[in-house]
């Protein structure tokens, strides 16, 4: 049965205040004066001109004692050591791979930072270099951790743990990095039946929970068996929920995704992306999150 839904566009409504907050956020646009007080140290997103502190990006002002910085809402990913990222291989070079992580420069995954199959620890030889393409090719997705940040801002990744490595079957959702909340762990096995990796760079990977938690995880053998229909439905629903949360600019973390999933259950999966259903689900999610806090 073919279904074609067309609608007239509706002007976006300004979303009301989303609940009790410590104070109103000081929002600035590029060129706005933050303060004329010269006693402050300037952080990211600011610059000094004519004895005034001026914002260079659009976002919210954050003040920590004497440090003033502006945190932008829509920005490229800025790597920090210890972040979990999901990236896509763009190039295979001599002793490293170039990984796309939605940052200003491509990230780098050195051959020496990659786990060898079987977990052996040895010096990488010339054969390893020649066999690089057998491990990771252009287009492959990996989960990795940021090892260090170069002086120009480029990020160096490593997959030196069994939980990182090449990703198999699943769905990738790309969101703005500022919407992913910093948490203790970014690998979540949701009770609804799928697992999710919330990359700090805004790449969210949704995949079916593997049955056995064995050494295969993070290995190089991808499971190519067809995923069952029930798992697919869960994954599609999660994907639509994440898109709904992102459209309404809610922070993404395991609880918000789970609440959104539960709020979306009465609707059909493909209806979640309709604007009115999206608003309803996100409103309910927001309410539950506020109840959780309060």
């Amino acid at each position, binding site marked *: 049965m*073919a279904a074609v839904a067309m609608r007239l566009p509706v002007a976006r409504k300004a979303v009301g205040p989303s609940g009790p907050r410590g104070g109103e956020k000081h929002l600035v646009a590029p060129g706005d004066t933050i303060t004329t007080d010269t006693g402050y140290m300037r952080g990211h997103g600011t610059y000094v001109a004519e004895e005034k502190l001026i914002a260079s990006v659009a976002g919210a002002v954050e003040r920590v004692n004497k440090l003033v910085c502006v945190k932008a809402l829509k920005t490229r990913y800025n790597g920090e050591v210890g972040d979990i990222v999901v990236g896509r291989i763009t190039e295979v070079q001599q002793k490293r791979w170039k990984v796309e992580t939605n940052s200003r420069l491509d990230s780098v995954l050195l051959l020496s930072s990659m786990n060898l199959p079987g977990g052996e620890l040895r010096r990488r030889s010339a054969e390893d270099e020649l066999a690089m393409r057998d491990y990771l090719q252009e287009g492959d997705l990996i989960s990795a951790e940021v090892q260090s940040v170069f002086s120009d801002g480029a990020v160096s990744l490593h997959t030196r743990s069994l939980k990182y490595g090449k990703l198999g079957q699943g769905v990738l959702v790309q969101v703005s990095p500022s919407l992913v909340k910093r948490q203790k762990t970014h690998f979540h096995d949701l009770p609804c039946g799928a697992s999710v990796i919330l990359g700090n760079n805004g790449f969210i990977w949704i995949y079916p929970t593997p049955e056995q938690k064995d050494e295969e995880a993070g290995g190089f053998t991808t499971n190519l068996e067809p995923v069952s229909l029930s798992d697919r439905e869960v994954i599609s629903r999660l*994907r639509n929920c994440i898109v709904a949360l992102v459209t309404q600019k809610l922070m993404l973390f395991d609880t918000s995704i789970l609440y959104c999933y539960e709020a979306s259950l009465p609707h059909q999966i493909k209806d979640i992306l309709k604007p009115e259903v999206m608003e309803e689900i996100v409103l309910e999610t927001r309410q539950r999150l506020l109840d959780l806090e309060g």
Partner: protein
Amino acid sequence: MASVVLSEAEKLYIVHGVQEDLRVDGRGCEDYRCAEVETDVVSNTSGSARVKLGHTDILVGVKAEMGTPKLEKPDEGFLEFFVDCSANATPEFEGRGGEELGTEIANTLYRIFSSEGSVDLKSLCINPREHCWVLYVDVLLLECGGNLFDAISIAVKAALFNTRIPKVRVLEDEEGSKEIELSDDPYDCIRLNVDDVPCIVTLSKIGYRHVVDATLQEEACSLASLLISVTSKGALTCMKKVGKGSLDPESIFEMMETGKRVGKSLHASLQKILDEEESLGTTRQKVGFLG
């Protein structure tokens, strides 16, 4: 065409999903994404429309100008298409990168509208062999999110529906030379009959099945696609195969049947939304680009 790179496992996931009639965003194989249609968005055109199909954003403007009829069709007006793939859509279209795609789309539009009866060209004639209306249809690609042809054809149909051509009178004075008088009343205009204007339905073959309205990721998994232009009555006017893969005759037949079915419901929804917009009249709140 803008394309994304996918890993083999992701492609496999998509292909298996299509086999089971459950795509990544929960749609079935014959479901379209939610489309937003708005007409009369550009003020200095005779007609315009903007269509948003998921991440695909198309803007069409129609300008009616006076011109001379073509030699082989002296009592008809004609349509001229121009497609601009702006660099806004993807960086690949920067400079002259989007020209190839633009000419391909324009040629497809010419082919579709060249079939008899899609638009009543005789109503565009003012003076046989001397004056006629030429409709310059300009298509602007603002964002590329998969399924360009469908979105463009929907936008073109909506823009033609919105086109208002001023009424002209031909006056003959004593010496026999003809003068054309434009009516003063801005609301005195003729509208085009778009009942028979076809829409394109793109069917992409993924695995053993075909899907309608493929996203960029799904297009990366499909090797061959069939573009079908269907009228509102379900008649097929034009067909084109794109892609480097092959299609066998049974698949083509199945895809044609699906295309006709989906095309009919597409036309029905589009006509409903256009009539609804028209009935709102001046009370309609224009959203445009700042909404």
